[in-house]
């Protein structure tokens, strides 16, 4: 149960959404965008977020698309994880998504909500980082398209009022061989200790990970090291120095165990890749 009062809006256009947001800001109040709403509700009942207004994006028509068009896979930010898994035709995305939460929760959790989550995991982003996707943002000045590496993580890059509308990626990439592994504390349903996704694209290996540090990461330097390495063990020692922030150390796992698992997964990926190439 949420103990505080809040206003709830379901705008039909992106302009309305931004206007309502702006209105609350100008009154010095806290609005928040919502799509699945699962995180907002569960945090609000514990007073971890206390918005004055929830602006639900679910009713905006374009936010629900999930289709291949003009050589691109285009997914709206309010598309649920289950819908994206079954309709994107992107095997890696499907695999990763289906490891998040439960079937029932995935009927509600959305791509936009997962990418903008306050949790460190945001696993749905891993396939998007690997395919160098572009993100269409709604801004007060209209839609703009940006490289995912320039706007993710949203909490560091999105400006106030800006929100995610869609993600686009090259349809040709989706069938490339992939590798994915998620380690949890015990039950599979748990948040990841580490989750690692990799794809083989044109003689390259691409790697992205979640759970290791505060934000999901594309590991470009590691990808290069693996390409060049004679002995796989050689690339493992460098890993820590590539991380932009400390390895997470929390109740899910201590940092040394996280790193151990990560290295082991990387080793598997590298061996697997060397074998394939």
């Amino acid at each position: 149960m949420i103990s505080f009062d809040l206003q709830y809006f379901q705008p039909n256009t992106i302009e309305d959404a931004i206007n309502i947001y702006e209105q609350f800001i100008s009154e010095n109040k806290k609005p928040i965008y919502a799509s699945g709403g699962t995180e907002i509700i569960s945090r609000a009942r514990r007073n971890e977020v206390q918005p004055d207004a929830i602006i639900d994006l679910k009713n905006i028509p374009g936010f629900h698309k999930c289709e291949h068009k003009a050589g691109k896979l285009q997914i709206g930010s309010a598309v649920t994880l289950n819908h994206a898994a079954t309709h994107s035709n992107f095997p890696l995305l499907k695999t990763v998504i289906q490891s998040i939460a439960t079937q029932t929760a995935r009927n509600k959790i959305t791509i936009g909500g997962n990418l903008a989550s306050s949790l460190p995991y945001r696993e749905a982003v891993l396939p998007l980082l690997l395919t160098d996707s572009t993100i269409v943002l709604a801004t007060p000045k209209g839609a703009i398209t940006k490289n995912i590496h320039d706007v993710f993580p949203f909490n560091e890059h999105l400006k106030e009022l800006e929100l995610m509308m869609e993600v686009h990626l090259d349809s040709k990439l989706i069938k490339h061989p992939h590798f994915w592994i998620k380690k949890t504390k015990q039950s599979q349903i748990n948040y990841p200790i580490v989750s690692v996704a990799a794809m083989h694209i044109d003689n390259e290996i691409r790697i992205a990970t979640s759970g290791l540090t505060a934000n999901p990461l594309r590991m470009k330097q590691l990808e290069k090291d693996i390409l060049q390495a004679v002995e796989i063990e050689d690339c493992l020692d460098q890993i820590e120095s590539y991380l932009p922030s400390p390895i997470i150390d929390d109740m899910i796992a201590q940092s040394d165990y996280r790193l151990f698992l990560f290295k082991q997964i990387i080793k598997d990926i590298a061996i697997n890749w060397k074998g394939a190439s």
Partner: protein
Amino acid sequence: MKQPFTYIGKDIKRIDLAEKAQGKVRYTDDTNIAGMLHAKLHTSTEAHANITEIDISKAWEIAGVHAIITGEDFPFPVGPMLADRPPLAIEKTRYYGEPIAIVVADTEQQAKRAAEQIQVTYEPLPIIQSPREAMKKDAITIHENLGSYKVQVEGVHAVPGTNIANHTKIRKGDIEQGWQQSEVMVESSFSFSPADHAALEPRVARVEILPNGKVMVTTSTQGPFYVKKLLSEFFQIDAGNIMVHTPFVGGAFGGKGTVQLEFLAYLASRATGGKLVRIANSREEDMVTSPVHIGLEATVKLGARSDGTLTAAHYEFLFDGGAYSDMGAGMSKAAAVDCTGPYKLEHVSCDSYCMYTNHPYATSFRGFGHPELTFVMERMMDLLAKKLNLDPIQLRLNNLIKPGDTTPTQVHLNASNIGDVRACLQQVKKSIQWDEGQRTKTTDGKIRTKGVAAFWKTSSTPSNATAGVLLTFNTDGSVNLNCAAVEIGQGTKTVLAQILAEKLQLDMNKIHVTIEVNTMYDPHQWKTVASSTTYLAGRAVIAAADDAIRQLLQIGSVALKCLPDDLAVGNGRIYLRDSPEYFIPIKDVATGYKYPNGNTVGGLIIGKGSHVVRHLTPIDPETGFGKPGPQWTVGAQAVEVEYDPTDCTYRILQAATALDAGKVINPIAARSQMRGGMYLGLSWASRETFVFDDQGKVLNPQFRTYDTLRLSEIPTYKVDFIETPLIDGPYGARGIGEYGVIGMAGALANSLSHAADAELTELPLIPELIWKTIKGEV
């Protein structure tokens, strides 16, 4: 062989099956009553602190608030064994999540909002996070006035000036002599933190005080009469003026065997002039504010001859009872009286303590101290087997307890009061295919191992634990069975109906059991705990049936013009033994037998029966000598895992139980009961625990982060029963309710220790713990 029973030993489906399957059951909180007020708690954000101020002024500004209650309003400690806990913290708080104030308002939302507005000023105190720390000489005392607390149950030994809420001592034989006889010794320490019961239904209670002074309670509890007893004692209300109603209970696992929310709901109702007030735990409150599953730190030393014969054992159990003793004091005793497990040991010493810490307080958990002691003892048996290079099952077989031996509290065992643990162990050895290898490798580099545990348990019932049954008859000849046993999902009421069906030789469809309990209409019963209900209430059913039969025969003898001895009861009839074709239907006598001319004799048939445990004694404070429980149910369990040495993860492939049930009254229900127990035991052993930060705050009070075993992760279960009758049990039945849990942690830990080649001494057995143990960091 001819099956002598009609209903006993049959797979009879549960009487509440259809209602539950269709979701028609109404649990306590499934009722919305007009005019009902809602209470919410303000709970402590500190694990140990003096409370210097509670400012409720802002809370009163919230619309709809009727009352705000703080510790000052009822500054008296309560508690089931030792009255050490103020229902609302007063002067200091002793655990994170402790209730500090109650707000009563028109809606739950208003109550929650107002409760959040209460400002408490704390003065932090040093925090004790483990029972060993609590035991240290210079540890801060969590209860300064321990010496002044009222002992509610004889046999609780608190030590004023320390953090010891209870100390139980066992001294059997001559321990020094035992060590001298020992050719090998093993010693090890074990630990685990408190965890949750994780019942689906969070705890909830409603109280209304009627203008005539009657206190009407509706609550999800395992002990409606216990709620009545404690409310009466602590609030000075005549017991006759308290009515406790318990609808279906949505899971309990021991966590609803004590009283907490009922006290708070009573205080809340009282503060509003007796209005109906509901208090319902959020999941977080249910996990942290309400009592939890106990933690433990233990050190054990075992001595044996080189052939593996056990010679001596010393146990030190430091239970993490948390901030208040509640049932923790009882569990520390229960673990002591059965400390050796089902093994013959002449020389035993045990010091078992319930320690105060700044953790949420513990109450009974399914198995009452036994899953805990068994984890410790069964790991020790495997350590000893390893040292002696003996097969772990063989070592156990060599030492199993049997009739003629004595327990740690020196109770003499005979063919009735202890089951056949040897047969159980032999059976489980077969079920888990032990002889095909305790450790094998798979082609993909995984390791499959098996681990076993043998166990026993007697129930720590009070020496006057009782149950009663009332039988009334309907005009169609069917029978109503009223009994205060609580249906918590274990199927108890089906089993009681079966016993009655057997006694009356009456179809199950003709037996109507009232599933809800109401202390106004149902005869007194202690509680539905300790695997004691089939025994206590089952015996009461038999007594009540005998009483009803006697009346039926008497009135039947008038109707059929013969002596009562000429008659028998069965199939809804009273009939002549030698000529069953001469009979009178029960329906024609149940409400009085009417002659053709209208004259009526007999009146209503009302059967009554009760049973009370007998010959139990408190145990001697110095030696433990005494009789703690009526009988020992015994069993053995095994677990097979597939372990991945690359990352220390594993899958549980098989779990097996063989239990001496005395007599299985309902095989399908009993098997489910064992499966449910194994599930609970495996879930706890493999993943359940609270995680505390260094301030004593629970970091995972939600199912999102408090892990439980998922359906997709359960093993194949194997269940077998041995039947060594308990002579005074109903049809020979023993208590079995808790037993499926008891050996699981031990068996899983043994299996994994073998797989990882590392001695695992902590729970839960998560991959990271195994990894750390291998690295020598535990």
